[in-house]
């Protein structure tokens, strides 16, 4: 398995997203241009120019026609995937950290950071069929009880009935997406002890995995918020993903970016670690990055995955046949 190195960003990677067909890969980085790649050979298809700050997150619609991106320039933008044209800009008074399209792509959930006087918030926007009809108004705004703590990720629950969020206060919350009521909070006893950095959900919205700086990743039931599994590693977890094909989860991380230059690269453990989803045991690791891993995504076909690092590279890995026969 020789990875394909995709050098297109000039700054650390922040997020990776495959489209549903698994043929396109979108990457976001702290440079201002989200980039589109062929998921098979790593060729660059194009870029989306228009943001004026680090881009933290993106999502692509089910039919791969629309892209939504959230950026530190205090906007979220809608794009036409094919032409790269900017369709609409949502303006917020603070950086937008995460974006997610709902089932059916008629709604999007966008989180904003605490900034100046503003507290962190989760916004729900209606996405119009025709970009001409798009309006900026929020359908719903949710305020976290810990307003000064950042919300790092918010995604839709099953049937768009709930919104699941996690952030710096280490608590996972489930909200009613109709009324905005807080339905559930994760238990402090079993939950994460340090900020939650990443959240990825299963293809059928039944469960999701969270990664945290407390050096663990945890698997939760999306409807009941029951803790199902915990995966422990040796470094803070910045990124998580799950294989759609096998019972594997992948954790990526490394020490703080600020400590990278002062420690040996061998000590950093900039590895994507594979764990058995059920037995919670480590299966193996994929080395290569020379900075912490910030983003991970599995191709929906389960046969390849990509990782994005603080080093500015996206590494695209097509998994060997051996991988599909691992027995532990």
């Amino acid at each position, binding site marked *: 398995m020789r990875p394909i190195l995709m050098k297109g960003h000039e700054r650390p990677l922040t997020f990776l997203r495959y489209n549903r067909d698994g043929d396109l890969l979108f990457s976001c980085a702290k440079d201002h241009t989200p980039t589109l790649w062929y998921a098979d050979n790593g060729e660059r298809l194009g870029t989306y120019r228009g943001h004026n700050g680090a881009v933290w997150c993106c999502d692509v619609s*089910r039919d791969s026609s629309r892209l939504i991106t959230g950026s530190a320039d205090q906007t979220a933008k809608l794009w036409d995937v094919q032409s790269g044209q900017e369709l609409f800009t949502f303006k917020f008074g603070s950086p937008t950290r995460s974006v997610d399209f*709902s*089932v059916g792509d008629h709604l999007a959930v966008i989180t904003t950071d605490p900034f100046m006087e503003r507290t962190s918030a989760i916004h729900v926007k209606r996405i119009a069929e025709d970009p001409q009809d798009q309006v900026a108004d929020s359908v719903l705004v949710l305020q976290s009880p810990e307003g000064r703590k950042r919300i790092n990720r918010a995604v839709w629950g099953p049937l*768009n009935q709930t919104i699941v969020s996690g952030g710096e206060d280490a608590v996972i919350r489930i909200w009613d997406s109709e009324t905005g009521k807080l339905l559930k909070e994760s238990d402090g006893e079993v939950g994460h002890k340090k900020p939650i950095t990443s959240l990825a959900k299963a293809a059928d919205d*039944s*469960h999701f995995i969270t990664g945290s700086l407390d050096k663990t990743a945890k698997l939760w039931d999306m409807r009941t918020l029951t803790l199902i599994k915990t995966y422990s590693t040796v470094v803070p977890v910045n990124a998580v993903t799950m294989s759609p094909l096998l019972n594997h989860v992948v954790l990526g991380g490394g020490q703080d970016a600020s400590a990278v230059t002062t420690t*040996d690269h061998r000590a950093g453990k900039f590895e994507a670690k594979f764990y058995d989803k*059920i037995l919670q045991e480590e299966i193996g690791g994929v080395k290569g990055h020379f900075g912490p891993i910030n983003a991970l995504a599995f191709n929906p076909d389960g046969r390849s995955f990509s990782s994005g690092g603080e080093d500015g590279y996206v590494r695209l890995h097509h998994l060997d046949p051996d991988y599909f026969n691992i027995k532990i």
Partner: protein
Amino acid sequence: MEVLDIDARAAKLGIDWSQVNLDSIQLPPGQDFGIESDDEAVYHDDQSEFDTGFGNIIVVDHLPVVPMEKFEKLEGVVKKIYNQIGVIKENGLWMPVDPDTKMTLGYCFIEFNSPQEAQNAKEKSHGYKLDKSHIFAVNMFDDFDRLMNVKEEWEPPQARPYVPGENLQKWLTDEKARDQLVIRSGPDTEVFWNDARQKNPEPVHKRPYWTESYVQWSPLGTYLVTLHKQGAAVWGGADTFTRLMRYQHSMVKLVDFSPGEKYLVTYHSQEPSNPRDASKVEIKVFDVRTGRMMRDFKGSADEFSIGGPGGVAGASWPVFRWAGGKDDKYFAKLSKNTISVYETETFSLIDKKSMKVDNVVDICWSPTDSILSLFVPEQGGGNQPAKVALVSIPSKVELRQKNLFSVSDCKMYWQSSGEYLAVKVDRYTKTKKSTYSGFELFRIKERDIPIEVLELDNKNDKIIAFAWEPKGHRFAVIHGDQPRPDVSFYSMKTAQNTGRVSKLGTLKAKQANALFWSPTGKYIILAGLKGFNGQLEFFNVDELETMATAEHFMATDIEWDPTGRYVATAVTSVHEMENGFTIWSFNGNLLYRILKDHFFQLAWRPRPPSFLTAEKEEEIAKNLKKYSKKYEAEDQDVSLLLSEQDREKRKALNEEWEKWVMQWKSLHEEEKLARQSLRDGEVSDVEEDEYEAKEVEFEDVIDVTEEIVQESM
């Protein structure tokens, strides 16, 4: 007033109690209506502390009996004497006068500012000779009270019923013959069994905030000592760790056991308020079992160290070095130009005198005998040679000495059974610009203690590390230049050469800066700690071959277990990353690894020496096959059991997971229609998509070239 009364009263007066803001009520100044202030109780408590009793009063007897004319003169003399020792309180001296004879009664009372001063004055002036016929007899006032109350008739002390103590050595009877280790990480201190078969430590005892600085095992492993603000405590017992004894010594910083663990030495130093003064040091020696303080030493740090002021940390630890052997008979202290040797029967100096040795800088006890080795550097600009000497205690007879010339430094290394002493000597070259090293080897057990000089093949090699094989005749030296020095092995006696040291072999260019012999000898770890990132080489010295090389990245500490079966390597919190420890087998197999954030300390529980004789041990080693059969069978059983348990566990986990998946599937199915409507009637869920794989053959004309083929004629 009861709450009910208040309510009734308020109702009578027509006051709505809930509307009254109690905080807004202000009492007239100076009037409190008998309401006690919240901090009043505290205030009363403070007062009671000042009640010190008569502890600061001493009674001085055997003063001259003088008439009134001489009263003032005598008073003056007494005042003068005691003002030198402490501060006498105003009107603190009272000399009673017999009203009949108008003569003094020959005694007086003196009140000092503090009980400490009084105690000090008593100790210092008792037996003071004013003149031939007047020798002071000084007592504490409190003692008079106490002695007066002693009953006339002697009562036999009540014999307390015998309570059998716990078996403090129970851990040695572990059925699986495992060893214990203690670790400290974060606030927790934990004791584990090292269970190499299970590849996991088995917890014995865990306690957060067990100690306030560090923990230490006693030399024979019986006790674990913890340090606290109030003093030290030792823990041990049959099944779990209970507190066996406490030793009061406030703000204790360091502790040290005597080798037979009869005595515990505690150390405390206080920073001086004036930075130019030396820090104050207090050292106490306790009897471990009874908890009684046997002796305390107080003084400035200078008295407990040599070579200028003791610095911030105070004296170099351990201040008292214990003579070898299990008897705990002697301990010695090195200070400027003197060596003080104490014996534990009376806790006083041997012959009531310290040994005067000008300029002595280092002393070292033999680990088994009461022989002291000492080193005196060159003096008078080289006119007086440096000297290494062996002194027998308690006779103080010099057994052997050797003068050494142009020496810059010496280091003494005793072999663990006290048979040999190696002295590493750094000498100046002729130009005095650089130094080179050599060894002086003393054979203690042979007649007249012969000395042999050993120089390395390359005289200019720097010596990085030296270590004796425990209980053996061999030693290892790391020498040469960093970063790839050589490692050489020598033996004090070989089959061919019994009386001479001979070289066994040299390993070239090793990444090592520290040596760790197995406690049983034969095996050694050549370790590259710190700068070398934790390179480990497990080496068999009998065969002179490497068994394994490994790496524990950034390892800071290495410790063999007391039996020499396992090795622990640890990364302590000097680094941020990968704190924790790893257990290896003696031949370098990684057994298991435990990661702990903020990992401070790891220590194996020592074992007392074996009762088996050397012959018996040899016999066991010879017939090892016979003995090992039993253990191999046990190993097999354990591994079978483990894999069985593992299978069970995995099965359970898989079943549990299946349950979840079934539940999710059924819910997903239920929600199918709702999802469809959200997607504007689009049917497809990912898993329902039915891709049809068609093989399509496709032909394309890429290029057409015409080539004229000429038929050859």
